[in-house]
């Protein structure tokens, strides 16, 4: 009675076929196939099978008619009345019915599962396989060497775990039942030759104790050599023994049981769905084998007991009424009230493994229509959820890669209409995606460069679809930034341009470093032997790098999978790591370029990442990676050593996708090769060092020179007074003796002068070159040198310069020195200010004959009594000052024929100097 009701109401489609005709089908079967029940009963089951799967249908028939003794499961594809193709997981069982052969078939629609699986495997073949390996037995074959790997679970199910066996394909072959080896071989070969999309086979394997276990294999080619010949297959194995055993059971008892009951009982126990019946007191009356197996108990042990007594989690049973969370009992109550419940998601832990079930509950009525109990149907959707979760995660991972990266990503049509831009792009331009989508982006490019960009985009061809552009863009506030874009044209099969994928980054910083570096070389040339060779080398390596990157770009295979292309097009290395299992789930191809190592090697040994880091940096990075487990993100710079021994600087940023404490923690990381940037940085540093050295040398020189000058003053006085005596005593008594003495005095003065002269000459050996230079540029250089000092002291620098007609003759470096000196003094004068603006302004005034530069501060001022002394040698108000800075400034400016002076400006001081144009 219950069986009939269940079969009619079951969501599992059920058919009984006799002599190639369907003699019974339930409502679900009609729904599944799209035919009415009447139509179904007229149908040859073979007609249901999709035309392209005829061979499979025939093989089922053959097996059923000839083998007849062995029930089995399979996956088949049917075409519904509406012409839709659907995948079914079927369980077939041959029985004898009224002396004729009958076939019993249950079918579950697995189209969604199939699709999800295909979708996923399309994106991440390896991840899918690895995932399945977690759920089922897993194996991997190397077709070239014959070597094989079998997961622990696989080995365990056959009793070979911890046994000394050499894992080879030959070992697997030796376990296959002699009757099945041919079939398995056939299926495998048809996949390898390309006839079938996957290798699938149901066969028997011999266990260590000599028994045979039914197994369903599902595998796929994952590796090919350069000629396209398959070299590796990965697959999963599902143990079907239990299922087979329950299906065999009815055949042993068929003589004792009435036909209908027998059939239904078989169906009841053979279905992979979980079925149970409860009475009005929620006591289990009946349950099928699948249910018992799923919860790890015998059916008889559960009868007559409530859920609580059967050991279910009380919180799941009662729910949490205060939070409105329903429990099992709430569903039972609704069903008993005549209200079916659908799609409840139950999470059940069985032997510590989390399983997810979807449960329907229906009221169970007796012949009088009285509700006597609850009929429950559950399906294990753990795998489906896992896959869809995985899929969702993978999508969110890619989304994270695309949206969270600092790299700009855009897609636009052949007519330059934007189809997609990521967050980074929008943020950089301070716009919303909708402001741009469907419109052109060309107005963002600087006017003078727009035509070039358009021309180079138009110039892309299917043979050469990638191009790199460096151009300036204009932000809404009018500022210009340098961008570098890698543009890829996408062509369809007819070679018609359909879209562009563009990946870009802001390189203003780098451009500026390049520019600054260039300028610094110019100014340093005057004093120091410039390392021209270094610059040439650095330029060359930049060119090489661009060339290599272009090579990598063009070698990227064309692919319709947008996200993957993007992930691989990005020059930075994107990677997704599961840190709980220490597995690398995804790494972009640029890893090979930057690390000089193979992507596959990283997949097989995730530690290769940290192993590449040089010893000095490694521990620090490992520690920061470890903090990911606490949900912390990291941002590290470190050096790696490539296999060729060269060093690269890497900036690596990453964060966890899941909240901390989650069992699976996936981390998205983006690693950037910043070697070039680091080189620029160290060049800049070297420039600073050179200037500092220069400053020291010239300071020592200035001290000696100052001392010499100060000595000359008294020498002059002595010589002059002595000389003045001579005419005054001529004709007197001792004139001759005194005259001799005066001559001695003067001679000694001249000797001393010669000495100071030599000192002066020595420190001034290299007469500085006098050349025309632009004052505004020197001011810019100087302010850059003091920028960090200003930042540390919270001083704001304002430049009021003009580069029109500001060329004077002199030594640019010496003048830069003077400006630096004045600026540092100005900064120091403001460090004691509290709650007052600290502003350093450099004014430049260009006049017909000269240029005047004023350095103004808002500091404490000098004070009137000290103002006259500030330019004196050895005068200082600083604790550690030598009192030479301003004296040297004065000397320098005067040697240039200019003048330097000080004025008061409210509270602060203004130091000004003037340089002449001729």
């Amino acid at each position, binding site marked *: 009675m219950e069986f009939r009701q269940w079969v009619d109401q079951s969501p599992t489609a059920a058919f009984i076929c006799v002599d190639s005709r369907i003699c019974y089908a339930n409502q679900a079967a009609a729904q599944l196939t799209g035919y009415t029940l009447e139509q179904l009963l007229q149908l040859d089951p073979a007609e249901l099978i999709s035309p392209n799967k005829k061979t499979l249908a025939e093989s089922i028939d053959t097996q059923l008619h000839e083998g007849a003794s062995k029930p089995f499961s399979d996956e088949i594809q049917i075409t519904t009345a509406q012409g839709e193709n659907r995948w079914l997981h079927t369980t077939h069982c041959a029985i004898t019915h009224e002396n004729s052969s009958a076939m019993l078939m249950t079918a579950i629609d697995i189209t969604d599962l199939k699709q999800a699986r295909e979708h996923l495997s399309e994106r991440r073949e390896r991840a899918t396989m690895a995932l399945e390996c977690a759920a089922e037995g897993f194996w991997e074959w190397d077709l070239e060497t014959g070597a094989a790997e079998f997961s622990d679970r696989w080995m365990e199910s056959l009793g070979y775990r911890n046994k000394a066996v050499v894992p080879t394909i030959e070992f697997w072959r030796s376990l296959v039942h002699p009757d099945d080896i041919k079939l398995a071989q056939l299926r495998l070969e048809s996949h390898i030759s390309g006839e079938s999309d996957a290798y699938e086979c149901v066969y028997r394997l011999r266990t260590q104790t000599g028994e045979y276990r039914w197994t369903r294999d599902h595998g796929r080619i994952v590796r090919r050599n350069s000629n396209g010949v398959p070299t590796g297959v990965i697959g999963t194995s599902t143990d079907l023994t239990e299922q087979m055993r329950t299906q065999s059971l009815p055949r042993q008892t068929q003589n004792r049981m009435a036909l209908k009951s027998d059939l239904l009982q078989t169906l009841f126990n053979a279905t992979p769905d979980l079925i149970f019946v409860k009475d009005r007191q929620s006591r289990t009356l009946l349950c099928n084998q699948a249910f018992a197996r799923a919860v790890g108990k015998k059916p008889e042990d559960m009868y007559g007991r409530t859920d609580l007594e059967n050991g279910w989690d009380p919180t799941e049973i009662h729910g949490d009424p205060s939070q409105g969370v329903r429990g099992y009992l709430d569903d039972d109550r609704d069903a008993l009230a005549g209200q079916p419940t659908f799609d409840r998601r139950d999470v059940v832990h069985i032997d510590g493994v989390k399983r997810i079930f979807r449960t329907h509950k229906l009221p169970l009525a007796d012949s009088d229509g009285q509700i006597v109990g609850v009929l429950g149907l559950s399906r294990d959707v753990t795998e489906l959820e896992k896959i869809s979760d995985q899929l969702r995660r993978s999508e969110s991972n890619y989304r994270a890669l695309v949206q969270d990266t600092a790299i700009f990503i855009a897609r636009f049509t052949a007519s330059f209409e934007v189809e997609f831009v990521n967050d980074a792009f929008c943020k950089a331009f301070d716009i919303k995606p909708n402001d741009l989508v469907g419109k052109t982006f060309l107005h963002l490019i600087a006017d003078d460069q727009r035509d070039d960009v358009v021309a180079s985009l138009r110039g892309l061809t299917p043979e050469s679809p990638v191009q790199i552009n460096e151009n300036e863009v204009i932000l809404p506030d009018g500022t210009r930034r340098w961008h570098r874009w890698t543009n890829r044209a996408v062509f369809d099969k007819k070679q018609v341009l359909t879209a562009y994928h563009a990946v870009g980054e802001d390189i203003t910083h780098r451009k500026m470093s390049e520019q600054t570096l260039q300028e610094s070389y110019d100014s340093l040339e005057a004093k120091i032997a410039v390392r021209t060779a270094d610059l040439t080398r650095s330029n060359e390596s930049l060119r090489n790098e661009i060339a290599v990157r272009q090579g990598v770009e063009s070698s990227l295979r064309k692919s319709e999978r947008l996200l993957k292309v993007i992930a691989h097009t990005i020059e930075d290395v994107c990677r997704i790591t599961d840190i709980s299992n220490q597995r690398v789930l995804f790494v972009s191809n640029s890893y090979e370029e930057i690390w000089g190592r193979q992507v596959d090697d990283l997949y097989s040994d995730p530690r290769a990442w940290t192993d590449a880091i040089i010893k000095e940096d490694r521990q620090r990075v490992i520690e920061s990676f470890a903090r990911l487990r606490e949900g912390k993100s990291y941002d590290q710079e470190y050096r790696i050593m490539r296999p060729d021994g060269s060093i690269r600087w890497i900036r690596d940023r990453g964060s966890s996708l899941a909240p901390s404490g989650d069992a699976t923690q996936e981390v998205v990381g983006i690693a950037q090769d910043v070697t070039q940037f680091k080189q620029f940085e160290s060049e800049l540093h070297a420039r600073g060092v050179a200037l500092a050295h220069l400053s020291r040398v010239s300071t020592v020189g200035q001290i000696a*020179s100052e001392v*010499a*000058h*100060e000595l*000359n*003053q*008294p*020498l*002059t*006085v*002595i*010589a*002059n*007074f002595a*000389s*003045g*005596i*001579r*005419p*005054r005593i001529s004709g007197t008594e001792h004139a001759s003796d005194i005259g001799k003495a005066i001559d001695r005095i*003067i001679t000694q*003065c*001249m000797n*001393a*002068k010669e000495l100071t*002269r030599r000192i*002066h*000459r020595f420190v*001034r050996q290299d*007469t500085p070159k*006098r050349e025309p230079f632009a004052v505004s540029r020197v001011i810019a250089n100087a302010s850059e040198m003091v920028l960090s000092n200003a930042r540390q002291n919270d001083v704001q620098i304002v430049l009021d310069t003009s580069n029109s007609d500001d060329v004077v003759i002199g030594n640019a470096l010496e003048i830069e020195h003077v400006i630096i000196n004045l600026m540092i003094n100005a900064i120091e004068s403001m460090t004691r200010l509290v709650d007052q603006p600290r502003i350093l302004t450099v004014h430049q005034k260009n006049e017909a004959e000269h240029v005047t530069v004023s350095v103004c501060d808002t500091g404490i001022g000098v004070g009137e009594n000290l103002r*006259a002394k500030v*330019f*004196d040698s050895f005068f200082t108000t600083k604790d550690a000052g030598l009192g030479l800075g301003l004296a040297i400034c*004065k*000397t320098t400016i*005067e*040697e240039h*024929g*200019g*003048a330097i*002076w000080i004025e008061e400006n409210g509270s602060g001081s203004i130091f000004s100097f003037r340089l002449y144009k001729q």
Partner: protein
Amino acid sequence: MSATKPRVYIVDDDAAVRDSLVWLLGAEGFNTQPFACAKDFLKNAEVRSGECALFDVRMPETGGLELLRKTVKRHPQLPVIMISGHGDIQTAVKSIKHGAWDFIEKPFDDRVIIKAVRSAIAEFVDGRHSTSAIQKFKSSISGLTRREYEVYQLVVAGMTSPEIAKHLCISTRTVSAHRASIKAKTGITSVAQLIRLSVQINN
């Protein structure tokens, strides 16, 4: 000139140097007028012809070179002799180019400075050498050999002997020989004079 003592203005911020110059030049029969700073001189000096000025290069506020520029503009008839504690040839060249009569390093031999003051007062006419002196210098320059002329040009450009040697790829001793020969042919003994004349024959 013999009736009244010729006046010499002295501008130096160092009082001792100022006093010593007054003492020295006073003994040689000059009427000296000292000033402690440029401003004071520009404001109070009543310049007439037949006078001379001594400016220190290094002074606070307005430096010697600044003062020289202003003086040349305001009193073109006044010859100026620059005195400096820094024997810097670049400053010397610059001074002469800006119109100074001579450039003398501190400390100085009394004969050198007295000779310079005397020649400035006697020979300076409207900021120039007398025409005859320039003509004489021109013809003596044309008597230089090609190499001597090269050396002469580098000397008046402000280069020292070692620098000239390096520039022409010859030894310093050869340069010294050339310079001695130039001195003999032109009769000009000081570099400052040489520079001044070279500026003038080019004008």
